[in-house]
């Protein structure tokens, strides 16, 4: 056991834990952050995805002591009570069936859109291909990603100096 400090959703936590413990169990059982979920423990499905330094990371195979950057979980996506555009698109598109995998879908899509604000259909398929859903909501997930891309694009100030009249 040793002290590990984790920065999660804007707060720092120092915990006395076995440092090899996968991040997932610390987030869920010690920090009460239940957005990331156990699906395989093998890094194959994406249910446990969190964002660390702008990358989608599978917390079920990430030793807690290896985490250096700020962690964002599903609970940390909303800003001042306003859902992230990706989350809002998920509601508008009524994406989930059971919803159990949707943490992985949303967090992976968030990173995809942060890195590529206007993905093509094939970029979405490829970027999301390793994030699984057994209710097979893929068709709606892909529609929601496009919806979120549009709403984020609309919300961004126009490029150049003139702005929009």
């Amino acid at each position, binding site marked *: *056991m040793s002290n590990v400090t984790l920065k999660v959703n804007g707060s720092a*936590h120092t915990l*006395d834990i*076995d440092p090899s*413990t*996968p991040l997932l*169990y610390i987030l*869920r*059982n*010690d*920090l*009460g*952050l*239940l*957005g990331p*979920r*156990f*699906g*395989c*423990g*093998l890094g*194959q*499905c994406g*249910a446990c995805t969190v964002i660390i330094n702008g990358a989608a990371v599978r917390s079920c195979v990430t030793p807690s002591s290896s985490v250096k950057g700020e962690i964002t*979980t*599903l*609970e940390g*996506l909303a800003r001042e009570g306003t*859902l992230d555009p990706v*989350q809002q698109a998920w*509601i508008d598109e*009524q*994406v*989930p*069936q*059971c*919803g*159990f*995998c*949707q*943490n992985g879908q949303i967090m992976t899509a968030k990173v995809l859109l942060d890195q590529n604000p206007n993905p093509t*259909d094939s970029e*979405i*398929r*490829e970027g*999301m*291909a*390793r*994030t*699984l*859903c*057994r*209710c*097979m*909501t*893929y*068709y*709606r*997930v*892909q529609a929601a990603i496009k919806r979120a891309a549009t709403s984020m694009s609309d919300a961004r100030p126009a490029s150049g100096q003139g702005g929009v009249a």
Partner: protein
Amino acid sequence: MTTFTNIPKQIEELLEEWKGAVSRRNFLKGSGLLVVGFGAASVAGASLLGSGAAAEAAGLAQAGGPYPDPDFRQLDSWIVIREDSTATFYVGKTDLGQGTGTAFRQMMSDELDIAYDKTSLVMGSTDVTVDQGGSGGSDGIERDGWPMRRVAAEARRVLLELASVQFGFPVDQLAVSEGVIAVKADPSRRATYGELIGGRRYNVTLTGADINETTGLAKVKAVQDLKIVGQSPQRYDIPSKVDGSLTWAVDVKLPGMLHARNVKPPVAGAQLVGIDESSVRDLPGFVRVVSKGNYVAVLCEREEQAIGASRQLKVEWQRPATPSFPTSEDLYTYMRHATPTSSSPPTVVGNPDAALAAAATVIEAEYDFPFQGHTAFGPAHATADPSNGQMTIYSNDMKSYGLRNGVAEFLQMPRDQVRVVWMDGSQAYGRTAADDAGFEAAFLAKEVGRPVRLQWTRQEETAWDTKGPAYTFTLRGGLDDHGDLVALDYSARAADYHHLGYNEPDTVLIAQFMGMGPSMPASGRAATPSEMYAISNRRMAAQVVSLPLVFETPLRTGNLRDPNGPQVTFASESFIDELAAAANADPVEFRLRLLTGSTSDDDQFKRARSIAVVKAAAETFGWDPRPSPKPRGTGNILTGRGTAYAFRGQTVVAQIAEVEVNRRTGHVWVKRLVCAHDCGLVINPEGLRRAVEGAMLHSLSRALHEEFKFDTEKATSVDWNSHPTLTHADTPARIDVVPVNGDPNPDRPDLPHYGAGEAACKPLVAAVANAIFDATGVRLRRAPFRDARVLAALRAAHV
């Protein structure tokens, strides 16, 4: 270390509201006059009130039990109206993720005449909702929706009577709108539902032979008068699933709770010889090894400790002396040569043998379909609390009432000392109908006297969950010299010996491991096609075969979404396509020809609905009539389209798949799907659309990827690499869901609502196979259509 006591947020909110008030249980007993508010967000959690440790933590006394069933013959068991004119409905169903909860609220709000957004719903928790059995078989809307509608209509009737007394006007001179009753002649004289009955009991006794027949004096509304049914309010549960605020069954955390993991035998049928507890005794957090028979589990203080200890525990097993089953490669040969364990007498119409002998053309084909797992995305889990000598199980079991009954019997406890609190979980398509984890968590909690949270590993779930049975088929068909189908001979074999029931205390896996299994296996069944083709001579035969190992096997069968449907329809609707090709007929036209005959009124009605969906699918797709296969293209990508249709219960669907087949790699991409879907009265069109999309893509996964593989002693499909599933990369570019109402009289007042959870699973595999044939001229008779299998078939045919 920080210790968190995770009382689910919904419980905390409820506990706040509860202070100084009475419990729902007391309300149901009639000792309370006030009804405590349930926020709309509290849905599942509302039922957690008084849960053992959570309530104890808050210093409340309702925890102790017993937990008798609410009386379904009391209106108060179904509906509560509060002083602020909001209402909560209590139903004995569970929502597996298809939005049925939203649909139930729509149906009940409509009959009660209250705004949808003034209502909330509590589902599936044994001591606070009436026992409608939980979910399964796509019966939630079709069967259980009726008593829900009737009791809501009865609640409205009683409110009208109360208003009639208050205002001194007969009921027919009163008007009801959105929870307000007014005198028609003087609308200033009005009363809200809250003013009329808010916080008080109805004390109305209902009638009906059983819960499905439950009724009051009121009649349900005519279809034409329904306003909320047919609309598409958004699902109430989605926001909390998107922002991370929902507490799922897998999230329950109780004070003093231990974490458990099972230790499964390395091969099927192994006998436990010994456990070396010293291999884990000194690990941090280790609490205990519990074993009985061949069942072994490790319990630790923390989750990662339990995972580590379950891996490190040294257990000696004795392998069985003989192979437990053929390999998955040898399975079909084994099944075709095995002596059946049971055969239903074949259904025979006309004289199929004579008709085949006289036919101008006879074709014969064999089809194979593998074992496929439920492969739930979230491995099995449950948390059990043995406080106060009772047992509370927090579970996502679709059949929570059955789990309560099964566990009570398994642990030899009175039923009313066991309750199941249903909470959201990973959709599992029938897996939780035999909820192994619920039984195991309860057993362990009773053994150690502390709350226990148990979760299966991915490998355990993929290997040991219940399977949909493998099938082999032999079909023969005869065409006359006009190309008309004059004889069909269907013969199926299902590897379905010892098919699991619903939460039976002697067939769940832990009971088998403990040697508490039944003396005789359940015989299982093999199914026959659901289509309504009028064929003058046909034989339908179905047999069950057994594998050598019957118990304690990863090849135990259970109800996988639309049990038998995708298998049987793959064979029967592919073979119809073969016959259409042999007749040089367009596949849609060939089917429509077979649907024109009539033998009885009921058949005629079903054929009319069949024709309606087959035509609607073709029209939506833009089907160009011609025989299959089409002239083969010259590029690497070959395209084609195929159709298939089927019934699931009273619901009928026709589907069309458009595929691209890569002749160099064998890769199949289903580019477009069309589903014409007739489930009678549609409650929530947008919800239906998404459920149908999901059902189709689930079967697409079964068509393209899923095959549970094994050697002669164990599963070799154990994770998402060794057992692939559909991914984003496979997703069609376009899906059209076309609601059809094929009722000849769509305005009749009692237009029924049929089920929609599974029907769209049924014909999809066949539609894809037929499309591959159309594109390539190659008939695939064994699923799944993985790249290597398709490529081999293309090469064999020199495509």
